[in-house]
């Protein structure tokens, strides 16, 4: 790491800290803005939806690592913050600051995400209500964001786009507030005439709420705070700057005619300056990924494939990830003229799908397309209220609502399918509990170093921090390190996890037969004696999100105390453990 890169990292951390501080003021303000976006009846729906979201995310949905083990490394990166993770400093800075209070455990991140996910519900509702000028649209948006499985699963996971979405929605709400105030301030007084949009039905605009239209002239706090939130969101993932910029542009376009364009330009410039360190960091990270051939999608050859990929690799169009009924409602909103200002949501929706094309596979589409799904859901909320107004018959309305609800089922089934990765998490937790009181021992677990050169894509991340000091008393080593100089001067345990049965395969490759036992684990078994601390035979859930596993119906995992083997290895197969 050169001094220039160190300086860049420090600049990113400093910007993230400043923006994080500003977000403490900005986010409550954005939430407060929601109060005036709804009437009494719709407000109750939004509050109920937010509470339902909280319950679903905190109590009902399983809290799981959704990144195929990468969440373990992400947790460690957030704990240290330096060097800045490849994703950027925004979300990492939030977790880093919270780690001052919360334990060094990925569960901390999952809980923070669950709470932030619930917080996004009223923000999404507020934005939908304001943009559509229809509180009912806001209420429907609140319900959909609260219950759609794609959002529930994402918020109950380690996905680093959860804070991004909350900040982006908050920023968009404040940006819309500024545009609304500016418009109200420029509204002609009695006797004057002008081109002014009507305030939302059943809500108050700031102009109409104030004592006089000019009272809000020069009030730029919402713009400043919104800019801070949008900049923070933009620094949270590599592609976030363009997604956030597209969303902000959509809100501005939807709020035309734009008053005070100069203030808006200054805000955009400030945001740009704040995002520069992140952009430089991302450019460097892309270069490194390209050097390692880890970003094969980023090439000119991708361009002609974009139309195909937009359909084939698009969570919004995949009924097993995003309900087809909701996607249909979004299409209706775009098709019908009644969508009004909400129609501009197509812009961030499209950008949020295209932005991920260079680095998109089945393993992460359900996670990284969540921002796109959010914009589609806002459009769908508008589509639902349009359908409601177009169809006066109660039976037809009920049938439409039922069809939409039924269409949620496939995504709920797919997104909450049990996975081997979730099983791994439960076995790791059992190992943590089993070793909790022990000190001065060695824990051997598989690592990247144990894999052959042609197998560098199997994620070998492991939550060492749960076992190493200060949380535990272990020295955690790889199979290779331990086997090169076995040290039995203190207790040695071997964690036999899912990765002993996992090896990355490219999509379309046939799954290997049997347990897919990896050679380094087999060698451990041959070389040392295994005394189970606990052993679990678990069903093999197969390749739900990523192609890793064999086709054996079950796998045996566990924690073993190991000892030197005095005799030649037993000819028993590993399944006989």
């Amino acid at each position, binding site marked *: 790491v050169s001094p220039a890169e160190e300086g860049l990292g420090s600049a990113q951390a400093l910007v993230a*800290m*400043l923006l994080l501080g*500003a977000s403490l003021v900005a986010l409550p303000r954005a939430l407060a803005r929601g109060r005036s976006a709804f009437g009494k009846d719709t407000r109750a729906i939004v509050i109920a939806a937010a509470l339902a979201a909280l319950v679903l995310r905190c109590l009902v949905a399983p809290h799981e690592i959704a990144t195929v083990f990468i969440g373990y490394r992400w947790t460690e990166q957030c704990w240290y913050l330096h*060097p800045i993770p490849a994703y950027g400093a925004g979300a990492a800075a939030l977790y880093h600051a919270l780690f001052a209070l919360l334990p060094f455990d990925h569960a901390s991140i999952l809980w923070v995400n669950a709470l932030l996910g619930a917080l996004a519900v009223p923000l999404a509702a507020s934005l939908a209500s304001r943009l559509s000028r229809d509180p009912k649209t806001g209420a429907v948006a609140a319900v959909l964001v609260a219950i759609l499985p794609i959002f529930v699963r994402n918020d109950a996971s380690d996905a680093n786009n959860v804070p991004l979405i909350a900040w982006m929605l908050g920023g968009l709400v404040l940006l819309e507030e500024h545009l609304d105030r500016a418009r109200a301030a420029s509204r002609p007084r009695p006797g004057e005439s002008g081109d002014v949009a009507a305030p939302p039905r059943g809500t108050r605009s700031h102009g109409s709420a104030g004592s006089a239209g000019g009272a809000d002239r020069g009030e730029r706090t919402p713009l400043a705070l919104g800019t801070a939130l949008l900049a923070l969101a933009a620094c949270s993932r590599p592609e976030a700057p363009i997604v956030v910029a597209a969303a902000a542009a959509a809100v501005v376009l939807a709020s035309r005619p734009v008053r005070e364009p100069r203030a808006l330009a200054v*805000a955009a410039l400030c945001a740009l300056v704040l995002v520069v360190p992140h952009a430089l960091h991302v450019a460097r990270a892309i270069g490194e990924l390209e050097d390692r051939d880890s970003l094969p999608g980023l090439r000119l050859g991708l361009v002609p494939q974009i139309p195909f990929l937009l359909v084939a690799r698009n969570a919004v169009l995949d009924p097993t990830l995003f309900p087809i009924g909701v996607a249909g409602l979004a299409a209706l909103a775009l098709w019908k003229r009644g969508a009004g200002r909400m129609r501009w949501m197509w812009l961030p929706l499209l950008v949020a799908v295209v932005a991920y094309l260079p680095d998109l596979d089945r393993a992460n589409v359900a996670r990284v397309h969540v921002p796109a799904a959010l914009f589609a859901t806002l459009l769908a909320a508008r589509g639902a209220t349009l359908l409601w107004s177009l169809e006066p018959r109660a039976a037809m309305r009920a049938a439409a609502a039922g069809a939409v609800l039924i269409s949620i089922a496939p995504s709920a089934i797919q997104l909450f399918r049990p996975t081997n990765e979730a099983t791994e998490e439960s076995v790791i937790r059992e190992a943590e509990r089993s070793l909790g009181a022990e000190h*001065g021992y060695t824990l051997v677990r598989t690592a990247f170093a144990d894999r052959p050169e042609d197998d560098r894509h199997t994620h070998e991340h492991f939550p060492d921090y749960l076992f190493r000091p*200060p949380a535990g008393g272990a020295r955690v080593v790889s199979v290779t390190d331990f086997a090169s*100089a076995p*040290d039995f001067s203190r207790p040695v345990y071997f964690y036999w996890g899912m990765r002993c049965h996992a090896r990355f395969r490219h999509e379309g490759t046939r799954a290997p037969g049997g347990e897919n036992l990896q050679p380094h684990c087999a060698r451990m078994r041959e070389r040392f004696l295994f005394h189970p601390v606990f052993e679990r035979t678990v069903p093999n859930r197969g390749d739900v999100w990523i192609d890793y596993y064999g086709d054996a119906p079950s796998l045996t995992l566990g924690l073993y105390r190991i000892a030197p083997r005095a005799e030649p290895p037993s000819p028993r197969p590993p399944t006989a453990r």
Partner: protein
Amino acid sequence: MSGPRLLASAIVLTALVAALPAAPAAAQVRPRFVIPPGREGIASRMMGLGLATAGCRTGDVAIEEARIVATYACGAQRVEVALVHRDVAGVARTTERFGIVAEGAPAPLLDALAARVRREEGGFEWIAPTPGWDGAPPDIAPVDPQPTMELPAPIASRYAEGLDLYRAGRHAEALALFTELASEHPRGGVLGMLVATLASTRPSAERVEALARAADRSPDDPLAQFLAGVAAHYYAHESGRDRWEKERYYETALRYLVRARPAYDFEARLFIYLAVSHFRLGHQDEAEVAIERAVELGGDDPDAFYCRAEIFQRRDVARSIADLERYLEMTRRLVAEGGVVAASKQERVRRMLEHLRAVQRGEERGDEIFDPVGEGPVALRFGQDRARFALGALACGLVVLVATKIGARRRARP
């Protein structure tokens, strides 16, 4: 004042507040280029050590962090001349790589010196300072002039040759010699000298990686494992820029030292590095076992006691104090016998002793004194203290909140 202006003021103010604790560190002017280790020979040749230059006799030649200083006796006049980087302001003469700083030096001396520097400077390169380098010499192990056991005659003479090279500051040459010697005869203090010379070259991250690769290529070569482990340990200690990097390199050190242990289980130094690496990774029990073994094997090595002091600093501060006192006593004796001890380390140990005594009296909190994290080239560094980062964010939030309130109040005025 409008919102954006208030926000901008708040951001600037908070940045200033955040920068305050780092201000003293930032005030220390760090040179852009420094002299790499092992350049004593070329420095002596450029300055004409032992020669007459334009009628002036060369006295002492000393290498400082970013300059080579020599004194010359020109008749009754004594002048001091320094070679610095050519970009330094106020130099009297410049060559391709150097500037010559001299007050009152006769012109013929300067011309002759410049000519000699031009002849010799081809083999010299300035380097950027290592991040975290505070200018102090590396934390090298004290060197005993005597081997710890009687060595066979040819080995003993090469040992003495290596020791001379080490004393002359020709560390690269000494390292090559001791590496060769250790591959044939690792006992009798040869590994100790190898460690001392390796530490004096201040291994860089690239050097550690190269040694680690070499060790991986030769898993049956204990010397390769030992060198990689020691280099990783010293890199973590001397140059680790944050806790994460330190931990990474201590882990690396352990990996290779553990591999070297079966072959070198007679060597106290191996157990010292094992113990300290374990301790700095939080493995207190392993650290205690290893350091006791180190003291058992190397009771005449002051560093064994220094490291035991570190390991027991929180468990038994009285024992730590006793060990540091013993370290100072042993190093005093060593110096008297002609051994090499880093004066800066002795001074640091005295400060540590004072600190631990204050901790014992309950006047101070136990700080990380043995393995502090360097400040690095950037004054504002985050990521090492989550609480500080969180408080910084809260302070920013508070400033923004106050700014928005003031703004709202001003707008509300009629």
